[in-house]
């Protein structure tokens, strides 16, 4: 595989899989309406999305496709009011994921799984503002009393920050394995992978 420029077909593929991926993310995010469930999104999201993503990986042959999808997810998060944090994280994680998969010349399925794990960490970006500068935020809420501030810090204690990052990655790998298995079971036989 020589590195070529991305063509129309590749860009359309990125678009289609972004659509499937985002629809699934949004369906899961409905769970997030119950705020306590939010951390669970880092588990269910990467696992379920592994299925379309591994199919996407079979179409990725040129540099940039994973990175673009990652950036698109970031932009979409901005449009859904989750801020620009996922965009920043996604740009970095997408690039790393891209480089990992490219390391195997876009053909190694093991690297595809690892790459997907890394890709999944963009979701972690959505949680960043919760850890981001909590002092500044809580200082504006002094009126609520110390108890309130403690409750909130207990809900999202600092150690959760790296934990969520690792969770995203680990369950991304799980999702990758699941996607890989289904790929073998269905899409290879059906001739679309």
């Amino acid at each position, binding site marked *: 595989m020589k590195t070529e420029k991305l063509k*129309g*077909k590749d860009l359309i593929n990125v678009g289609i899989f972004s659509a499937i991926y985002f629809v699934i993310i949004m369906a899961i995010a409905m769970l997030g309406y119950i705020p306590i469930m939010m951390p669970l999104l880092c588990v269910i999201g990467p696992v379920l999305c592994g299925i379309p993503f591994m199919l996407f990986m079979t179409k990725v042959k040129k540099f940039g496709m994973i990175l673009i999808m990652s950036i698109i997810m970031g932009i979409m998060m901005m449009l859904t009011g989750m801020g620009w944090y996922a965009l920043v994280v996604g740009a970095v994680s997408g690039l790393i994921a891209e480089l990992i998969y490219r390391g195997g010349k876009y053909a190694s399925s093991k690297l595809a799984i690892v790459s997907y794990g890394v890709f999944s960490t963009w979701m972690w970006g959505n949680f960043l503002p919760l850890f981001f500068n909590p002092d500044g935020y809580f200082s504006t809420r002094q009126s609520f009393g110390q108890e309130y501030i403690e409750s909130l810090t207990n809900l999202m204690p600092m150690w959760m920050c790296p934990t969520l990052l690792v969770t995203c990655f680990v369950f991304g790998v799980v999702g990758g394995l699941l996607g890989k298995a289904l790929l073998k*079971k*269905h899409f290879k*036989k*059906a*001739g*679309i992978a």
Partner: protein
Amino acid sequence: MIEIQNASFRYANSDSGVLDEITLHIKGGECVLLCGKSGCGKTTFTRLINGLIPHYYEGEMSGNVTVSGLDVTKTELYETARLVGSVFQNPRSQFFCVDTTSEIAFGCENLGLPVSEVESRIQKSANELDMVELLGRNIFKLSGGEKQKVACASVSAVQPEVFVLDEPTSNLDIDAIEDLKRTLLLWKSQGKTIIIAEHRLYWLKEICDRVIYMDKGKISFDISMCDFTAFSDEKIRSLGLRTLCSDHLRIAAKIPVAETMELQNYHFSYQQKDALCIDSLALPVGGVIAVIGHNGAGKSTFSRCLCGLEKKFKGKVSFDGVQYTRKTMLKKCYMVMQDVNHQLFCESVEDEVCLGMDEDNEKDVSGILSGLGLAELSERHPMSLSGGQKQRVAIASAILAGKEILIFDEPTSGLDFEHMEQTARLLSSFAGRKTLFVITHDPELIVRCCTHILHLEEGTVLEQYPLTNENKARFTGFFKV
């Protein structure tokens, strides 16, 4: 205008649609019909002209293709796009934008034309195609015919010299075909070159001047339309082609049906708009009922209600003295969808047909599979089968699930004569045993297998009659054939 020399092509992952040493010359302003059985290579041929082969579809290619001096095989697709415009089979999948105006602008935007020019071209093609009222609309809310019109306008706005159409009427009803015919006549009057690959032939008699019949990747004959229309009915049929005119429709003998089922209170509305409004309706049990009507007549709402798919639907069906509600109808009915891919879930044909099966039917599995010619395929993945095979898998699963009413949504869209006849035989084999509803725009299918006609218009029953030779005029009147 178009010069093809010794062109051969073979797809990288498929054996059908091969082209074998095609040499052809098409003059500017000519209008050429490509016909032949499925898999004869006519779609492949159109792809040769618009450059999708070899630039999009992979495979082995040899020979030369030039369109007004431009070597298509060596030119990038976006260059060819200025010269050749394409309209495809499926109106659902060929648009890029979500609103009609952007869609018509799309081709011109890709060429980088200045905004004022693009705007005037949008107006011009909308006027010419008589679709100004469709501007600024949501494409997803348009009917298939309207979508195809937008596709034509979009291609027209680029103002190419050559138009290539690949089975453009597969998913269209009669009125939409009339519209498309007007569009083609307009292009023809502008002196454009038109190449059209089609199964349905009757509407092209006044449009095309030249007919090319292909067989197994070769050109069998290349004659004028005059000579072609002189062909006898038998000759057309032996070539595996669809009929050219209505006199050739012969109604097959039918099994008489005695029992009836009664549909009551078939009322349904979407967003305060009445989509279906039938108080009561008696239908023959064991009949093969063709459901006809224009787009928006309520055919699909009717079938969804019959199947029990609409949650808010209150209508009932009674036969044999028993009344069935929505939920029980859901157990009795099965719809074979236009896109069968929606209803195949498992990893092998056998698993597929056994899923959701009535347990009493377990021993019948192999019998039913072989009855439908699926016995050798039982280990295959359903998605890897051909369209007709998939359809039969869906039918097998419905029979094993003990369904008594089968509904077919456009079972022959895009099928050639041979496959259409196969489907017709399959459907008539159920007559008397199951009650079949066939939603279709295909008069040739109806005369071959249907016993009754149910004509819906604006959500109500316009007429309902058994299909006999006496009633033939009513039926052909609707199809204008």
